[in-house]
């Protein structure tokens, strides 16, 4: 697999240095802990942190900025960040108002963050930890007990980030994470595998005419391996799995996200969105906000995920609030 790499071992630090170089006014780094944080952290507001393996960009370190995360750290590609990085991430932005630690449900991430939180709390840092698990595909998986945390994470970060900017207290921001997680559902699908730079080979094999339904963002198996289907049928399959899980009811206002897993062109994502929008209408769901693009990826995997978030007036307002992160296309 051809990739833009120098020494694969330096891949993560080099990409993080690039993010900092491109955002000198907004962000600063502590490279020894693979962490990126906002400049000028407001001590009166709740700080929000996250950290996971690399390879999911823009998720995590590229989601740091006003109205989103306050700081985030990275592990190697598809591997949890070490405990000291998690601990320093909390410590680097610990405010009087407290820290909300958002963790996607993977065993490695959870153990690292659990330890980091215990250490930080022992030092008197005020914090709460919340576990995100929006993936409806499988109950347990290679790396999880319970459901996985995937693209729905974006909505948790966005709503909590916006609420924290208003000066809301830690309990309120935590309650918002809970509310979003309770109302968001996702399922993914892969057309191809993906290749971590340091590994050099694809992490799983998949035939040219096959797709993995319910794939995880590290290429973990989902519900089934089938022959590839037309885009509309794929959208129906994902929509059905997601929309019946909550369930979403006629009259609901929703946010709809079609997320690319890294190797699918934007135009293909809009083909999927076109059908998903129609399915929402058929079901009586009003799409109040839509998101089409890459929010949580699996390196260069061709594939997608579909996310639905049930909205209320408060959530709609928080999603519409301004935010700025390292990824922008305007």
């Amino acid at each position, binding site marked *: 697999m051809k990739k833009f790499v120098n020494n694969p071992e330096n891949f993560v630090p080099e990409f993080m240095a690039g993010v900092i170089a491109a955002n000198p006014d907004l962000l600063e780094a502590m490279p020894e802990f693979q962490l990126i944080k906002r400049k000028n952290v407001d001590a009166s507001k709740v700080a929000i942190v996250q950290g996971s393996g690399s390879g999911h960009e823009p998720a995590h370190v590229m989601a740091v900025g006003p109205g989103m995360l306050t700081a985030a750290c990275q592990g190697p590609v598809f591997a949890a960040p070490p*405990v*000291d990085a998690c601990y320093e991430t909390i410590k680097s932005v610990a405010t009087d108002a407290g820290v909300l630690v958002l963790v996607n449900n993977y065993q490695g991430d959870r*153990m*690292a963050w*659990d330890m980091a939180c215990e*250490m930080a709390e022992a030092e008197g840092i005020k914090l709460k930890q919340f576990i995100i698990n929006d993936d409806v595909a499988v109950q347990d998986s290679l790396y999880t007990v319970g459901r996985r945390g995937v693209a729905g994470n974006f909505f948790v970060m966005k709503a909590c980030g916006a609420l924290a900017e208003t000066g809301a207290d830690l309990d309120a921001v935590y309650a918002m994470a809970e509310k979003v997680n309770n109302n968001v559902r996702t399922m993914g699908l892969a057309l191809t595998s993906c290749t971590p730079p340091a590994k050099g080979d694809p992490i799983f094999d998949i035939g040219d005419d096959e797709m993995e339904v319910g794939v995880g963002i590290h290429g973990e198996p989902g519900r089934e391996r089938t022959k590839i289907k037309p885009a509309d049928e794929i959208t129906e399959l994902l929509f059905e799995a997601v929309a019946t899980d909550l369930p979403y009811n006629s009259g609901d206002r929703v946010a709809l996200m079609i997320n690319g897993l890294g190797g699918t062109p934007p135009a293909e994502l809009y083909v999927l969105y076109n059908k998903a929008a129609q399915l929402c209408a058929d079901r009586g769901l009003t799409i109040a906000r839509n998101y089409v693009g890459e929010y949580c990826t699996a390196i260069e995997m061709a594939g997608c995920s579909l996310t639905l978030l049930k909205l209320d007036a408060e959530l709609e307002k928080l999603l519409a609030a301004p935010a700025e992160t390292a990824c922008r296309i305007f």
Partner: protein
Amino acid sequence: MSTLTIDQIADAIDVTCDTVIRNEKYFSDLDGLAGDGDFGTSLATGFKVIKADLPAIEKAAIGAMLLKISMICSKHVGGSSGPIWGTGFMKAGMASKDMAEVTYHQLTDMVGAALEGIMARGGAKRGDKTLLDALIPIHEKMQEMDGSDLGAVLAAVAAEADKAIDETRTLVAHRGRASQVGERSANTPDPGIVGVATILYDWCKHYGVDYTPTAAELNR
């Protein structure tokens, strides 16, 4: 009552590093019988860093020293052993805080805090065929004894860990990678228990405490 200074604890950790490094291949071979065969290497990778860094770590507060070692474990020990052993050192560190020496009772509490932390982190309990099957009886034995003779305590806890190897040998693992092979884990010793027992037996040898082990894994 007996006390232990931070230098004595650092020395015991240094001896532990030697044990883990020397048994890298043996522990991995044991793990390969029912697990994924990485236990010895995972542990040794981290303890090599501890061995190298230990002289430079400040010896003022036991808690701070153990927290540093905990960080190294969780960063450099691969797989689930990193958080498990890292948690043990972290909880023992939190229980000893800024003390430069601890009494026997405080040491007992540190062991208790470590094993409770490990239980919470990994979700394992007694009888699941993990290192807890050595640590729990060790802690109980420490609580029973008055600690006036630390050599006698060391021999007694080494005996508990030794006994745990054979008592759990026929059990089926319920936690960790070995749990995924089900019955295949029966009749193989748990590498974590053997690890704890080997460390304690090596402490006996290092500190001149007489102890004759019974388990085959300690009589190689």
